């Protein structure tokens, strides 16, 4: 007789549905983190007198923000209705919270970046009121963008975790730390690529620290979420994960030991770190999609807690007080 399977299913069909999201969303997870990390670096560079780092990070933030916006609109089933996101503000919807973070952050990051174009303005504008107000306004906007940036870099973890997708929901404790680490690694990396060597110290330190946090939090996540870690090692998710680990570790080592001495090493390690960060996001994204497609990841943990006599039940008073 065939031994009883550890879980049952209906013709092997999925129980939960995978998100309908395409590459737009993992790309946004990466770019949103990059924008946030870059705004933090730009604000710090502005306050500590590093104009080269400030300029390049502000431009990176605006570029990442622009592509993010395009990706987020493109991903919608009805792109022309993107502004319906602004109808409500809902704490229970991380996507709504994110919409408002972006709505506040976007114009600030854009103003900070545009203020860098002051010298390219035609002479009458440059010497007029606009030209004279621009640097100060850019600094204020840049610092405010930097204050909002950590929220932009971390809320996307809740965006994924607040679902019934097993590998995302079960990673809810660790994912925000993976994401901010990944954001710091990417922003520090591109900061090293674009800033002059004498100003890239903070970018290098942020990149190394971010990489360590990303790798450590990812490792901790995979060793503590049981069955839901399995999809992270398989298929496309596994391939992205291996690439992410290799790129992040190599980039961080090079950043730690070579990037302050040689421009070539800074560029190479920065590029590796940015690519590693993107791979981390695609790995997590595909792990969730894979975990939703196989009913085992949904059914087995639920069946195990039922059989152990520990179903999820409300224990409080019968009627709300």
């Amino acid at each position, binding site marked *: 007789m065939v031994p009883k399977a550890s879980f049952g299913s209906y013709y092997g069909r999925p129980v939960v549905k995978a998100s309908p999201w395409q590459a737009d969303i993992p790309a946004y997870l990466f770019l949103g983190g990059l924008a946030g990390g870059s705004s*933090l670096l730009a604000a710090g560079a502005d306050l500590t007198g590093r104009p080269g780092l400030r300029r390049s990070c502000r431009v990176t933030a605006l570029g990442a923000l622009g592509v993010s916006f395009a990706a987020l609109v493109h991903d919608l089933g009805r792109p022309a209705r993107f502004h319906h996101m602004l109808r409500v503000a809902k704490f229970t919807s991380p996507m709504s919270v994110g919409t408002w973070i972006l709505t506040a952050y976007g114009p600030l990051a854009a103003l900070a970046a545009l203020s860098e174009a002051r010298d390219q303005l035609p002479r009458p504008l440059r010497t007029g009121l606009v030209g004279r107000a621009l640097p100060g306004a850019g600094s204020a906007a840049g610092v405010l963008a930097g204050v909002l940036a950590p929220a932009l870099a971390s809320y996307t973890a809740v965006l994924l975790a607040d679902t*019934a997708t097993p590998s995302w929901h079960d990673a809810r404790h660790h994912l925000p730390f993976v994401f901010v680490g990944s954001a710091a690694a990417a922003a520090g990396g591109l900061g090293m690529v674009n800033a002059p060597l004498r100003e890239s110290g903070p970018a290098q330190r942020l990149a190394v620290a971010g990489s360590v946090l990303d790798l450590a939090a990812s490792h901790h996540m995979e060793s503590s979420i049981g069955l839901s870690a399995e999809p992270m090692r398989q298929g496309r998710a596994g391939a992205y994960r291996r690439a992410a680990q290799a790129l992040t570790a190599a980039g961080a080592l090079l950043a730690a030991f070579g990037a302050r001495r040689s421009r070539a090493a800074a560029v190479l390690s920065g590029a590796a770190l940015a690519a590693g960060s993107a791979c981390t996001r695609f790995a997590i994204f595909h792990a969730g999609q894979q975990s939703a497609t196989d009913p085992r990841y949904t059914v087995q943990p639920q069946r195990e807690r039922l059989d152990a006599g520990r179903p999820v039940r409300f224990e409080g008073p019968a009627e709300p007080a």
Partner: protein
Amino acid sequence: MTSFANRLFGPLDPATEAGYLDPPTRKGFFTDTSVCIGCKACEVACKEWNAVPEDGISLTGMSYDNSVGLGASTWRHVAFIEQPSGAREHPGEESASFRWLMESDVCKHCTHAACLDVCPTGALMRSEFGTVVVQNDVCNGCGYCVPACPYGVIERREGPKDEPAVGLAQKCTLCYDRLKGDLEPACAKACPTQSIQFGDLDELRVRAKGRVDQLVEAGVSDAQLYGHDPRDGVGGAGAFFLLLDRPEVYGLPPDPVVTTKALPQMWRQAALAAATLLVGSLAAFVERRNR
């Protein structure tokens, strides 16, 4: 007055919580699979009434089930399971070596509905009947509700852009329009065996308890209610079931939990991570003096 207790988890009257001042009694379905004959009249009636388009015409090899599962264009779905069994299907029958399980599945209209919680546009709303309904003119097809549903019910409709509701999240409305006109939902109306029963949820729960007790007493020991308990992971389903086997056999999650139950915990972790990033970024600018 609206109570703010149990807003994310636990027993609650969803219409009151949503802000309706004097809502009608909560409506729901009790689907008794022990009397389902697999006629699919519910699937057809649902499609006819709600003008739900064709959902793929192919033979799946999954017994008599060719609509596969709930989705954007399948709002009632009849599952067919051909099961080798020594158990009696009905009281008084000879013990058979084989039994049919048939179950008409539908949106659960959860007390704590994850799809509604995560919807960023307000397109998903709570009706005065306590049901969960998509407003087609508001939804922008972000797709967030799709992975949020612990039952895999709601789905974004794909297809040619000029066809109705393509790109929008779609699911059972519990025939919101018929309810407003004091009519029962189309599937319940069409069901010839009263496997699908519509009514006040409180009354249906009492009726279901009587039915399952009757079946167990008659020797159908696996008969069980599913989704009836207001203390369960979704605060009790507005559409609940009497099953003759484990939920997962029918493609249902055995112990579903609304994802937003963990929301405070998730935001706390995100805030900690954001603080870590902020402090780390500041620290990156600290230079050693002797450099």
